């Protein structure tokens, strides 16, 4: 197991958003967290990353406990994070947005500026542009590339397919597959089941802050009841 989360309870102020989430990610897997808006997917990812520390429960990464650590420590141990709202550093250029990660995480590895540009060729053309001037889709790619520059062992993506055109979703699917082939494990939260089916091996379905269903994605997809109840309109 590269990542184990046990009984995470997290909330903001007086409200509890996730009630005892447990999940595992095995090395080399792509795992998808599915569920509608507001189901608690983002909060789960933020708890793992240390951005919203859980009130109880524990998170173990490569056998070491990381619960309650600062996000930067978790990042330096090899967890990359791509938030749903992209959060590009707006006054750094595209190139600086990428390179800065290598500087601060100090993790040697397979990923380099060149390889990120190969993965997303459009970023090469934009390399001197400030982050603020990018379109939503371009920012999404930059956010993924930025996380890769830290050579993460585990890459966490929050709603990567959200707001992308079908063409871009296809690019994204290809990119994620290549990232996995390069030996990075992925944990993805998304609402888009069809997208998830195309990239992920296993999935968890979340609703109202708890996990309702877990299993291989094909199995989930075939379960009419599950799809209808937790995912469909």
């Amino acid at each position: 197991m590269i990542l184990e989360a046990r009984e995470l309870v997290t909330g903001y102020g007086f409200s509890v958003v996730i009630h005892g989430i447990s999940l595992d990610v095995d090395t080399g897997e792509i795992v998808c967290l599915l569920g509608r808006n507001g189901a608690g997917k983002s909060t789960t990812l933020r708890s793992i990353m240390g951005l919203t520390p859980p009130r109880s429960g524990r998170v173990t990464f490569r056998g070491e406990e990381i619960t309650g650590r600062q996000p930067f420590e978790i990042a330096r141990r090899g967890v990359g994070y791509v938030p749903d709202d992209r959060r590009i550093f707006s006054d750094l250029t595209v190139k600086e947005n990428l390179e800065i990660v290598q500087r601060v995480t100090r993790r040697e590895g397979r990923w380099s500026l060149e390889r990120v540009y190969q993965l997303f060729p459009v970023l090469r053309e934009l390399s001197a542009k400030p982050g603020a001037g990018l379109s939503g889709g371009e920012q999404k790619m930059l956010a993924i590339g930025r996380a890769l520059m830290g050579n993460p062992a585990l890459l966490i993506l929050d709603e990567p397919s959200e707001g992308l055109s079908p063409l871009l979703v296809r690019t994204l699917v290809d990119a994620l597959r290549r990232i996995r082939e390069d030996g990075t494990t992925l944990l993805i939260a998304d609402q888009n089941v069809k997208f998830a089916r195309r990239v992920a091996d296993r999935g968890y379905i979340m609703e109202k802050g708890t996990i309702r269903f877990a299993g291989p994605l094909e199995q989930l997809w075939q379960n009419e009841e599950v799809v209808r109840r937790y995912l469909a309109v």
Partner: protein
Amino acid sequence: MGVRPSRRLAVFLAALVAALFLFPLVARSYSLYLAMQILILSVFSLGFNLLFGYAGLLSFGQAGFFAVGAYGCAKILLAVPNLFLGLVGGIVAAGIVAFLLGILCVRHTRIYFSMLTLAFGMMIFSIALKWRDFTGGDDGLVGIPRAPLEIPGLLTIGVANLEQYYYVVLVVSLLSVLGMYRLVHSPLGLTLQAIRDSESRAEFAGVPVRNYRLVAFTIAGLYAGVAGALLAPLENTITPPIAHWSASAEPVMATLLGGIHVFGGPIVGAFLFFMIKDIIVRFTQYWLIWLGAIVVILVMGFRGGVLSILVERLMPWRPTRPMVTRRKA
């Protein structure tokens, strides 16, 4: 809602007021002078706290309105020897200036509001410093008489000596305290507190938020004016430093010291402020370092202020501190 003070508190307050009235019988003139300073700072701070504790706006320019009150009163007393005219004139002048500047200031909140009030306060300071013909420049206005309090056809009271003037300060201060007490417990007071807690919520409850902020700003200016006007005849001399921004910090510290979420906080704070000063000054001329240390300790550990802590100890069921604290992310 705890508006009506408990019986014990009422007895205590009645005794306190009685003691204040009897004070000149036992006190020497230095104590009287100190008592007047405390009363004046209390009024000043109460006004400040209407803005800060109740309406959520931190002003760093209140000394400007204080100075308008003081200079206004002094100018009138130097021309017409009637304390009544002087006080009313100073207060009205401060109120008008506060209203006019308030129209501009309440367009902002938070740090921008603080900076704006700082700028306007310092403009008043520079007028006091530089407009020699009117304000006497850095020499200030000297020889301000403690002229008799005269309401034509009603009464004339001589206030030339300190005891007599003490009663003027005491009565005006008590009236101001009473007025403020009624104000913060009125629908208007509730409205201001609501705006402090959530501006957008108040607006969506139907409150024209800016207008109400202007009302609070003007009243705070009036109170600063009352305090300033009372100071002029006490000191006989008024100089520009009373308008400087560092003078604006005095009501801030007094309020913080006493507590911002309890009505009496600023009064207790004003008392502590002068007591601390009076005691420390006996041992060392460096009393500000101690005051600074106290401010730091209060901010770090006791943001409710001394009176809040007392209230919590004595009446633990009455919440005075905000119940919602932001969770550390």
